[in-house]
Every structure is written in C-alpha cells, then in structure tokens.
C-alpha cells in the first residue's frame, strides 16, 4: 500500500525523523493561511502517489502567502503527469505547504528487504536529490549498503559506518546515526516494504531533515496495523481495482481491449503474454484465485465488464484440484446471471476437461471453446477486432 508524502513524513516523524514544518491544504485559501503561519518562503508540493513531481510542475516555491495561494489555486485540480503516473496523469487534490529550508547538500537514505541476502538493507548515498535508480545505474560506487542481520538487529557500528561514508562527521555524526536508527525503527515497526528519504537534507545551518519521504507498506502485514488503513487514499486507486480487492480478486487494469480471467498469478501473466504474442492487447491482469468458484467468476465478470474498453474476454482456467466441469458450470451460471454480451473465449484444461467443454457447448450461450493457450489467444484476438 502506498501513501502520500505528507503521511509518510508524519509516520517517520513519530519515530524520530526530523521533518520540515508544514501542513496540508485542500484549498487556495488554506494554502494562504498555512503560508502565513509558517512565514518566509514556503514550498508548495502536489500530493499524488507518484514520484517525479518536481519535473512535472508539482513542486513550486512561493515567497509570500499570496503567491502560495496563487500556486495552490493552479495546482489543486490540475492533472499532473510524471514519468510514474502514466500518460493519463493524476489529479492533484491536496498540496503540502512547507517551510523553505536553505540547502547545503542533499543525501539519500532508503531501506528495503534485499531478496538475495534475505535481509533488510539500508542504502545511503551522498548523491541525493536525484533519481536513485539513475545513481545506481551510472555511479553505483556512490551507493553504500549496510545489510542488517535480523538476529541481532541494527547495531551502532552499522550506523557509524554509514554516517562516515556519507561524510556526515564531527558534530553531524550523532544526529545522522540517530536519524538512520529512527528510519530503521519505523521500517520495522510499520512493516514497510520501502522507506525512503530523498533528499535527506543538510541545511546551511547544519541541520538534517527529511525533505521528501516515501513509505510503502507490506500488504501482507497490513492486518496487524489497522491504524495505517486510515491512510489509504481511494482517490489514488482505480475504482475497478478497489472493487476487485473487496472480492479478494487480484486485478490490475491495463490499456488493451481483451479482458482476461485466469486462475493463478503466474498463469495470468503468461495469458497476457500470449495475447500480446498473438497480436492483441490485454485489458488487465486478473487472478480469480486457485479455486475459480462460481462466485469468484461472477465477481470477476463484473469487474472485467466494468472496463468499457473490453471488447472480448478470455477465460483461461487450469482445473487442477477443482474439476473443469465444476468451473464450466460456474462460468455459465455467472455469465447468465450477469448477461454478458461480448464474445467470451474459454480455455479449460485439467481434470474432466471434456465434460467441462460439454457444459459450455450445451449452455445455450455463445462461448467460443478453445483448446490450448495458443488457440485461445488467437481466437480472442480475432474476436476483439
């Protein structure tokens, strides 16, 4: 689960990470008021779930409250397009107004679980402010990594090492180690999949701040952090994806016109791939779950048909433990109850496949029965044209 910058800063601040003074505005007048309270130059930052906001015009300086109001008026309601939003962009509904801080140097701090070592890794770089992926690709020697042994946890030597690598020594050593330790505490305490401070700012007055922050939560661990669920912003999510998650269906909307309904995530991805190979474009990723029960198939149909771009549907079910005839009955029942009026290609494989195909053929509905994934993909691509 993703959250906004201002929320990430609030979370990190609870664990002791220093953040600039600031407040969120949902109207230009509020922006004016906040800027007046903060005094001096302020930064107006669009709050959307995507990076690259600066380049897209979503971060601006204002030297007076009136200017902050003016900028907020333009920003709130605007569609911000960045390299992470996709071409359709995202609508800005809120702006964060923060005190302007004099920049001396920008650093990077981040923590994720490293898959290779299966340990949390703290990443730090003196090349902050930039896209860290670019730093990793072009100047990997500027990224320092400290792997944390889960049995003993984060130890002071790791913190000192990182601070020295960043060149934050002398009077800055103690505050730096304290902030990295706070970031790690936050990472563990909220079950984050990522915490990131970029830039991690050193001011002209030698103070350190999280100038921008990002926190992603591990979806598998959200159940034990009910308080974090309040931070979810449904406006940032696709309504069909929200509907799907309520039925425990894994659905991700894409931009093609062939709806896919598959059991299992790997097979679902492979089905999208073979549609593309056959010259078509998948409209979505959809995993109905291993069982593919009639209820789940019905829910999945509703979601697929909720996407107006969908011109044809491909159902690809590998009936393993669940028998194909049971799956087929579920598909027929669901299609009848919903009234599906676009072409549906069904490919069933596994136990009782012949019986399953008979159920489809005798259903009185116009299913196209396919044999094999390739055949199914070719048939659905032809029907979607």
């Amino acid at each position: 689960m993703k959250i906004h910058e201002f929320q990430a800063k609030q979370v990190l601040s609870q664990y002791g990470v220093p953040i600039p003074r600031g407040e969120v505005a949902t109207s230009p007048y509020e922006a004016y008021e906040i800027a007046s309270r903060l005094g001096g130059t302020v930064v107006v930052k669009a709050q959307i779930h995507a990076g690259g906001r600066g380049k897209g015009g979503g971060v601006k300086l204002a030297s007076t409250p009136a200017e902050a109001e003016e900028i907020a008026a333009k920003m709130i309601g605007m569609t911000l397009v960045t390299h992470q939003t996709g071409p359709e962009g995202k609508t800005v509904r809120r702006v964060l107004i923060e005190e302007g801080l004099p920049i001396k140097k920008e650093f990077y701090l981040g923590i994720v679980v490293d898959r290779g070592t299966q340990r949390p890794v703290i990443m730090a770089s003196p090349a902050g402010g930039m896209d860290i992926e670019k730093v990793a690709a072009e100047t990997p020697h500027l990224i320092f990594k400290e792997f944390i042994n889960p049995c003993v946890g984060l130890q002071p030597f790791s913190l000192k090492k990182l601070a020295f690598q960043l060149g934050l020594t002398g009077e800055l050593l103690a505050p730096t180690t304290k902030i990295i330790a706070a970031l790690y505490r936050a990472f563990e305490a909220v079950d984050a999949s990522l915490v990131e401070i970029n830039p991690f700012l050193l001011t002209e007055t030698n103070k350190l701040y999280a100038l921008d922050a990002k926190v992603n939560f591990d979806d598998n661990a959200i159940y034990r952090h009910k308080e974090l669920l309040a931070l979810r912003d449904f406006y940032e999510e696709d309504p069909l994806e929200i509907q799907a998650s309520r039925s425990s269906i894994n659905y991700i909307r894409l931009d093609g016109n062939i709806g896919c309904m598959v059991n299992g995530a790997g097979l679902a991805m492979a089905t999208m791939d073979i549609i593309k190979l056959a010259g078509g474009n998948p409209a979505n990723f959809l995993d109905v779950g291993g069982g593919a029960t009639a209820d789940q198939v019905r829910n999945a149909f509703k979601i697929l048909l909720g996407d107006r771009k969908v011109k044809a549907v491909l159902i690809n079910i590998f009936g393993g433990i669940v028998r194909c005839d049971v799956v087929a009955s579920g598909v027929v029942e669901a299609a009848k109850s919903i009234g599906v009026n676009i072409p549906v290609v069904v490919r069933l494989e596994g136990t009782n496949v012949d019986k399953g195909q008979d159920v489809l053929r005798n259903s009185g509905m116009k299913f196209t029965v396919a044999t094999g994934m390739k055949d199914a993909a070719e048939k659905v691509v032809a029907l979607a044209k």
Partner: protein
Amino acid sequence: MAILVDKNTRLAVQGITGREGTFHTQQCKAYGTKVVAGITPGKGGTLHEGIPIFNTVEEAVQKEGANATVIFVPPAFAADAIMEAAAAGVALIVCITEGIPTLDMVRAMALVSECHSRLIGPNCPGIISPGKCKVGIMPGQIFKEGPVGVISRSGTLTYEAVHQLSGLSIGQSTCIGIGGDPVIGTSFIDALTLFNQDPETQAIVMVGEIGGTAEEEAAKYIKEQMKKPVVGFIAGRTAPPGRRMGHAGAIISGGKGTAAEKMEAMRQCGIHVALSPAEIGETMAKLI
C-alpha cells in the same frame, strides 16, 4: 531417484485440522505419500482422519519419525510454524501459506538457515516426485514419472508446463514450486544444484516471472555449473512497472526485473528460452 521427496519421506502436516489442511492431506495420502502425523496445538493425542495428532512438531518427530512437514496454517502464524519445524530438526519444510509478512519471513529464514533445514516456499504449490511422493496442493494426476526436473515460481503455470510435458510423453523426476514471495527458502540455484546431482534428472524446465534477479543469478549458475540442458520461460513480459502482479515478488521496481532482461540473460547463458507459454513442452521435446 528424485530430489528431496520420495518413498522414504515421512510427512507431518502442520495445520492438518483446517479445511485446506484436511483436504490436501487426503489428496497427498491418496497419491501414496506417507503421512505420519498432524500438528494442531491443543488437539494432541487425538486422531484426525486416522492420523495421530500432536501438539508440537517436536513430538511428531520423536514419536513418528517425521522428516518432512507441510504447512497450511494461516499467514499470521505461518512463520512461527516454519520456525517450529526448523527448531525440531525437520529436514524438509514445505510452506503452502500465501500472504506471510516479509519481515516475518526474514526472521524465519535466519532460523531455518541456522538449523540447516530446507524450506520450500512459502506461497507455493509444494513439491512432487511423480509416482513416489506428493507434498503439496498440486493435482497429482497431471504428472508422469520421467527424466525432467521442473522448477517454478508459480502454481497453475507450473501445471500448464507439466501438462504440456506429460502430453508429449515427457515425464518428470521432481517438480518444485519455489514460491512467489520476495523471501523464499529454496532458490532456483538451490533446486538446480540438486537436479544437477540427481542421476535420474536429464533436463530441467525453469519457469520464472518478473521481479527480483533470481532468474539472472540462476542463468549464471547454469552457464558455469550445469551439466544438463535447461528450458526456460519468464511470465510477465506485458506487466507494467511498479505494479504487483498477484505474487508479492512479481513486481518490476527500479527498472529491474523485467521479463526482457531475464530472457536475454537466460539466452546468453545457453538456456533454451520458450517465447510463448504454449511452447514450453515443445521446446523440451526438441532437446531430449
């Protein structure tokens, strides 16, 4: 021969009295797996479907000689179940449970390594040596005994690959679903190493997906160490970056982990890459 599970496997089921646990225990038994014990805390001393139940894994090891466990307990308790099995000295732990918090798995893996147990999964269909032993939730009837080892990150896509192989009369020595999570017990390289040493296995199918760099590392191992031909497939070439494609581990992040990168790395290391998921079986048929 096969790897990890065979006629000598004495299986204990953790979470045997739940719906999933009960059903799949029956299925494993019907396939011929020796299910010797079940573990449900508080129900020790009773019988469930004729199988003796113990409160702890340790008792199941001591009293029934269990040398493998399969875990069906809910995600909030699954990492603890893994650690319990490891601490009890169980050599092979198969965790089917999906949705375990990543940081729980980080801690669990630390103990599993220390205890020298082997964990398969979590979030996987399990492991099967056709005709000998099934420890997991896969449909036994689609498998066939033979010379090909199968390693995969996903469930139903594995069935698809196996179905194609069996349909071409190519049997399997052992099939391992290693799981779709970011932190897993057995990697592609671990499984490849075992297949490399197994005299019965003559070739390998490796089914990967987007996310992480496990396939690239496996490709390097194959180039340097593998004595047997490998067919590969990567799911998710149409997946958009930054979106989790069902599996917690299937996500392209930071421009890394794309299908194109993985396929290229595999090709360069001499792996026979199937472009289409429908061609996994045929690609293997041409090799053996």
